[in-house]
């Protein structure tokens, strides 16, 4: 990575309103040179509007966007040092691949010889060598996307903007392109800013992710922090799947904390949470961090006791649903209090010794560092 700490894009208190609708609400964030930055959020959260404001297709109602030290307020899209890969790819249908990729160079008056070389280089980079004379309607969606990528990269922008780059591809191709995009970004060293609603895409490609909710940044963090240390219920729920239980903070010291959840039981954590005592909090517990045991054998009790006081980090319930996904099996378990908790269990062997099934009574435990306490 050629990542440095110098921000290439500075977004300063940017808001965008369409009539009465606020699409982007006072967002401030820095994007560093060379990073793979992802704007993640549900549809309609304002992430695409933010990207289009960076590209110059929308003007901020308030605030300022600075690219490479230069205020972009009065700079039209065709004069900005950024290029965009559109969700629909926007490959010009009346031009072949060479003309598409060379379009920007021809416009900016680059010589024919240099254009030819740079187009060839860009096509090589996106693995489209040999497709020079193809028309767009003779190509697959994945190939058209590569044309769009090459067409932007050939301009050597400071920042490449990608609007939902993988949403139109099928699952296999999407997984492949995730790796290729990350690899490409590493190779060319250009800052990538991608918009997506797909958390897998965000987690696998990004160096940092800004989760956007209702026009505001819900959390800005590297992917693993986003998953393991979500800042609030929205992020915990949006990134990955999660069980959330409401509770009261009963103990909060620098090295330990406890939460009493009526729906789940007593929760013990081996670290402090710095929340007000007696506060209303939420516990987020990832399905894969819950261990499943056959009920009544005391295994769960013994396992939980290893890092928590007696009676903490334990639960009992009945399997009410399961779905076998190949690598893991998901169980929906009804707790004694009536609430449903989701547990995922890796299928480590081909024939499971403890073959859990519908209506089985089960015990659960989790480690003291697994639950996350959320204050909002």
């Amino acid at each position: 990575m050629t990542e440095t700490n110098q921000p290439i894009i500075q977004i300063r208190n940017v808001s965008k309103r369409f009539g009465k609708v606020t699409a982007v609400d006072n967002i401030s964030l820095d994007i560093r040179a060379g990073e793979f930055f992802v704007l993640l959020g549900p549809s309609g959260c304002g992430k695409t509007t933010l990207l289009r404001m960076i590209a110059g297709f929308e003007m901020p109602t308030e605030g300022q966007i600075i690219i490479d030290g230069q205020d972009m307020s009065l700079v039209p899209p065709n004069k900005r040092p950024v290029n965009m890969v559109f969700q629909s790819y926007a490959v010009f249908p009346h031009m072949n691949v060479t003309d598409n990729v060379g379009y920007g160079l021809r416009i900016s008056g680059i010589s024919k010889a240099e254009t030819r070389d740079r187009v060839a280089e860009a096509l090589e980079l996106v693995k489209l060598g040999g497709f020079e004379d193809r028309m767009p309607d003779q190509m697959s969606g994945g190939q058209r996307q590569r044309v769009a990528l090459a067409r932007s990269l050939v301009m050597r922008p400071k920042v490449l903007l990608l609007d939902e780059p993988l949403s139109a591809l099928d699952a296999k191709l999407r997984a492949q392109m995730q790796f290729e995009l990350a690899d490409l970004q590493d190779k060319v060293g250009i800052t990538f800013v991608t918009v997506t609603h797909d958390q897998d895409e965000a987690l696998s490609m990004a160096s940092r992710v800004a989760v956007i909710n209702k026009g505001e940044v819900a959390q800005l963090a590297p992917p693993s922090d986003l998953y393991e240390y979500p800042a609030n219920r929205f992020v915990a729920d949006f990134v990955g799947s999660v069980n959330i239980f409401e509770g009261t903070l009963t103990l909060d010291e620098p090295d330990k904390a406890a939460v009493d959840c009526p729906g789940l039981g007593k929760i013990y954590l081996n670290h402090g949470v710095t929340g007000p005592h007696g506060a209303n909090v939420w516990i987020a517990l990832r399905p894969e961090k819950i261990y499943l045991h056959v009920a009544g054998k005391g295994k769960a009790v013994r396992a939980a006791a290893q890092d928590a006081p007696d009676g903490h980090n334990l639960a009992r319930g009945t399997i009410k649903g399961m779905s076998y996904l190949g690598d893991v099996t998901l169980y929906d378990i009804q707790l004694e209090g009536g609430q449903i908790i989701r547990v995922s269990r890796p299928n480590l062997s081909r024939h499971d010794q403890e073959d859990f099934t519908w209506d089985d009574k089960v015990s659960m435990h989790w480690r003291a560092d697994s639950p996350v306490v959320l204050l909002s």
Partner: protein
Amino acid sequence: MSGAMQDWKSQKKPFAAVATAPIFWLGLFFIAPMTIVWLYSFGQNAGPADIDISGTLDNYKRATEWLYLSIFLKSLAVAALTTLICLIVGFPVAMAITFAAPKWRPWLLLGVMLPFWTNLLIRTYALMALMGTNGFMNKGLGGLWDGASWLWVLLGMQPLEAWTPVQLLYNNFAVVLGLVYVHLPFMVLPLYSALDRLDKSLIEASLDLGAGHFKTFMKIVVPLAAPGIFAGVMITLVPALGAYLTPDLMGGTDSQMIANVIERQFKRANDWPFGAALSFLLIYAMFILIALQSMRSNKVKEAR
């Protein structure tokens, strides 16, 4: 295309059931009368109401004399000018409708189509009322003139001489203006349908790659709207070439078009064979135009 052909071949009975009535209609009311007129064009007058179809080519010989050929060429020039103006005026209109807010679009389209709901004759007379020497255009101009005169006096100068109405009607200008007025919707609608289909992100992509608005228009919008442009040109040029009512009502003595000449042969001159020959020359010209267009669209299809 090929799919439809296959269906037609494998499903003969349903096709016949659906197609018989229109084919019969076309045969009886279009092909048959056209054939009769076509046969007349090879005939000569044998009496006040009798035509002897003798296979003579005299009518065509006469029709290609310079007197008539020059009127024909002038009609072509007027129609071409009309089409060009319609294209120049219609393109921004179509663009404006395409880029208007979705809630306005149906109303703007309605505005373009509204004239179709009124009879051509009424529209033409309305336009003439507007353009006459006592019409609103002249009154408006006169008002401006009076205002200027008043300002002149205010500045301490002699008042301007009285306003003399401008002759707007009964000349070639009036004919072209009338034809543009009548044919503009024919141009706007195909242009709109072509522009509406154009993916707006293509325009943004062009801007994003450094092209200005003019270059984007020339290199992206116009080439991609080309089918609409050609359709609009054909659908304007062909009826404008055969325009009869507008030059008859709004034109002067020197602005008659080929359709007016044809009308005279059938009515006042009572020379049906010659009128038929002139008509068919016009039809042949239109055939050539349409053939050119279909050749072009075939070429585009092959290139794809």
